[in-house]
């Protein structure tokens, strides 16, 4: 009896799986589980067995029946699709499908992931460091000693040092991800290629293009024979990868204490396409990527010989990059948790 049931199962399943269309399947259904099908007849035989054997065989019979029925219903799905034109004709196929209810990644995250991918392709590793930073790493080690006028360009949020060993003004919220340059360089030797995405802070009023919290990605490369043209090439490649090959960029001289020569990168405003709008302060260009060759004093601070190695550093204003990429006219949209905004990404 046992063997018979298993045999029925095996032959039924293989025949059903071979069925070529709905009609064939219907025939097999009758042949095995129909009113006088093979399995139906076999089950009827169980009552003739000795009492003690009945439950076990009964359970097996049920299992066999279930697997045959399961196989039939799986097969039904595709054979119906293939053959049953009537069924399709009953559907209004223009009614929108039911989309899976999935959430959305924040646009900042999407841009950071893209940035990380682009730089990984260029051999950069990604670092993450403290936002609560010391004056030394944020300023002094970056060739901005106490009382350097260049500190004026980065109005700083200082942490409350009451009841602590720290002096007022010693601990701050980093004003730039550049603070990670020295932290990393003092621990390893060139060649180095690193990017550091993260949050930065400055004393600033909140408006369409300013905030006291914003995102940056710092990047730096130190090696023998690093050239200014390498910096230009890297910026050009990276921005085109991130913002599309048709963007226009131009370089200008600027001064940051921790680079010399200093470079500023402007990208044609994506909001107004260079015509001038409130987002780009009517200039048609947006300052996007300050950079430069790492200043010998910074290399000296980490014990490198500036005659032997050189490097470049850059920062991308991530908040600005996101707003430029998606043509968002207000930086505040990035910290607004309104799902009507988030669902667009």
């Amino acid at each position, binding site marked *: 009896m046992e063997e018979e049931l298993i045999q029925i199962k095996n032959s039924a399943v293989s025949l059903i799986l071979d069925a070529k269309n709905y009609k064939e399947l219907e025939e097999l259904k009758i042949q095995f589980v129909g009113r006088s099908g093979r399995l139906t007849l076999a089950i009827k035989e169980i009552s003739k067995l000795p009492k003690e054997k009945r439950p076990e065989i009964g359970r097996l019979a049920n299992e066999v029946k279930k697997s045959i029925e399961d196989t039939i219903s799986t097969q039904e799905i595709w054979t119906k699709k293939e053959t049953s034109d009537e069924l399709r004709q009953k559907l209004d196929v223009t009614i929108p499908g039911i989309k899976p209810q999935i*959430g959305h990644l924040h646009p900042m995250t999407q841009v950071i992931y893209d940035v990380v991918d682009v730089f990984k392709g260029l051999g950069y590793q990604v*670092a993450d460091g403290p936002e609560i930073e010391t004056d030394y790493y944020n300023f002094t080690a970056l060739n901005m000693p106490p009382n350097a006028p260049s500190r004026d360009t980065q109005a700083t*949020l200082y942490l409350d040092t009451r009841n602590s060993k720290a002096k007022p003004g010693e601990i701050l919220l980093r004003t730039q991800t550049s603070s990670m340059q020295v932290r990393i360089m003092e621990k390893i030797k060139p060649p180095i290629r690193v990017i550091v995405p993260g949050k930065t802070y400055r004393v600033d009023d909140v408006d369409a293009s300013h905030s006291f919290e914003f995102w940056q990605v710092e990047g730096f490369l130190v090696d023998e024979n690093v050239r*200014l043209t*390498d910096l230009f090439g*890297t910026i050009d490649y990276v921005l085109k990868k991130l913002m599309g090959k048709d963007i226009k960029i131009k370089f200008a001289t600027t001064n940051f204490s921790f680079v010399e020569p200093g470079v500023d990168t402007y990208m044609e405003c994506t909001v107004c396409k260079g015509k001038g709008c409130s987002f780009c302060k*009517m200039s048609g260009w947006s300052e996007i990527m300050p950079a430069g060759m790492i200043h010998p004093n910074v290399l000296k601070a980490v014990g490198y010989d500036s005659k032997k190695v*050189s490097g470049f550093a850059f920062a991308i204003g991530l908040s600005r990059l996101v707003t430029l990429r998606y043509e968002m006219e207000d930086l505040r949209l990035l910290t607004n948790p309104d799902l009507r905004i988030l669902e667009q990404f």
Partner: protein
Amino acid sequence: MLAPLSWLKEYIDIKLSSKELSERLTEVGLSTERIIREGDDVIFEFEITPNRPDLLSIIGIAREIAAIENKEIKYPKVKIDLKKVKPQKILPLKIQTNSEINPRFTGIIIDGIKVKESPDWLRERLIKIGQRPINNIVDITNYVMFELGNPIHAFDYHKIKESVMKVHKTIGGEKFTSVDGISYRLPKGAVVISDSEKIIDLCGIKGELNSGTFENTKTIFIRVPVEVPVLIRKTTTSLSLRSEASSIFERGVNAGGTVDALKRCVELVLREAGGQIASELFDIKKEVFLPWKLNLELKRLNKILGISIAEEEVLKLLLRLNLNPLKKTKDIIEVTVPTYRNDLKIEEDLIEEVARLYGYNKFPKTIPQGQIPIKQIPYLKDYEIEKKAKSILVASGFSEISTYSLVSEKDLLENEINPDKTLRVDNPVSREFEYLRPSLISNLKKALLQNKPYFEKINLFELGKVYVGSNIDDPKEFYFLCAVSNNKNFYEVKGVIEKMFEDYGINEEGAKYIEIFDEGIFFELNFSDILSKINLSKKYKPIPKYPPIIEDLTIEVPEKITARDITEEIKKQSPLIESVTFQSIFRNNRTFHIVYQSKQGNLTTKEVARIREKIIEVLKQKFKAKII
């Protein structure tokens, strides 16, 4: 810094259009903020970088244009020679100064002037650059500062008690009223000038009201100093008081330019206010303030820039910047840096000078040639790991938000967090953003409420930093992952955590991270902590060769017995039990899904029956279970 085109044209021919000019200037480092048209004049607003004191003057900007255009600059003609003047009458003045706090003190007395309103040309120029005309003397000192870049102050000579000027540092707490009538308490270490009884000048920042030039002033002492940048900066920072003069001194004034500025000023005073020189030329200094020399190695220049600029071209570019290049050896160019270029101190500074004038946008673009570093860096972050968590959340319907790290005291109190034990910003932009968040929940709650009017189903999460530590000696930053749902049930939310733990190879109860509030179900976990426990290593387990036997078991047990207790107990009964999973609950009836599996061969129904009996026996004994 505002610069009218008409004023610039006084020193240099400009053929370029305003737009072209501003673009060229921006490229060389003088970033144009705005171009304002005013009548038939054009006013440029430049952003001056902190390294360039010289560009805080019209002449300085004209010099940059001259360098771009390769033209000569016409300096204002000054005929007077102060060193040769023989005054008819000499008024007494005793100056006591100290080169450590006042490196150069240049000055002269002019007697018999008439203070009145400035002539129109002077008033107009000052107004165009945003300055308020006051009287002819004050206006001239201002004008010459904006023209040449050396700050100048005129004292009323007769208000200098006993004709004594003593430069010294304050002890702190001294009262000071600036010429514009605002009172201050001076900090310790500010450099001031006192006469025999009172402070008459806050050096490099503001003059005192008590010795300023007003309508009845007849005799003036004009001082053109060099101040110590750090000392000026300390005082301006401490007082939050800035002036055009202090901006120049902080950056480092043209120390070689004081006498020229004084000459220009004296000539204008004599022309516009009359009077005559009534003292010798004071010029007290220890150093000579001569131009300095720097070497530029051509090989290094081209190595750092990555292009090869011919030697001749380099010499030409340096000459256009008035750096008087001189070929020293085959590869070395020696330049002489004018005293107004305080920013040029090392070879790299000269490399920038050549590069910027050559034109950054003419450079080719190359890709770094070195080897790709393989050694792992410190502070490494693996975004792939957080991507996993975020993918699970997004796939489960949660949308990501990104909120401020700074929160208010109210936010803390509403979530029962003690502000005294929270890291605080000393100078917050507002009370709303005063504390560093020790949890993400308050922002998520607010986000949920904000979305309520527009959405029925709200599922949000944030993966961001929190900041903990009762004081700043030991601040810690952790990544937290926090999520909220107002439509998923407890088990659905728990399932999301479990799915994440499963992918991370973490064996932990997810329920302990869940909190149920009126607003919805939240979970918050220390993601940094999770990261440290992650085990992503995967190994293939062969799939079973023999078919499993699967059955469901429904039992009725007292309420306090947990699903986990039962599952674990069942599992213990035989190594042939491959898995036990909780299936469903109805009143006190719970159904478990049991998979029996042997690696050795087909399980017989007899074997399974034996195990099943054992399970039932144990459940009856241990949990008083009834089999349904």
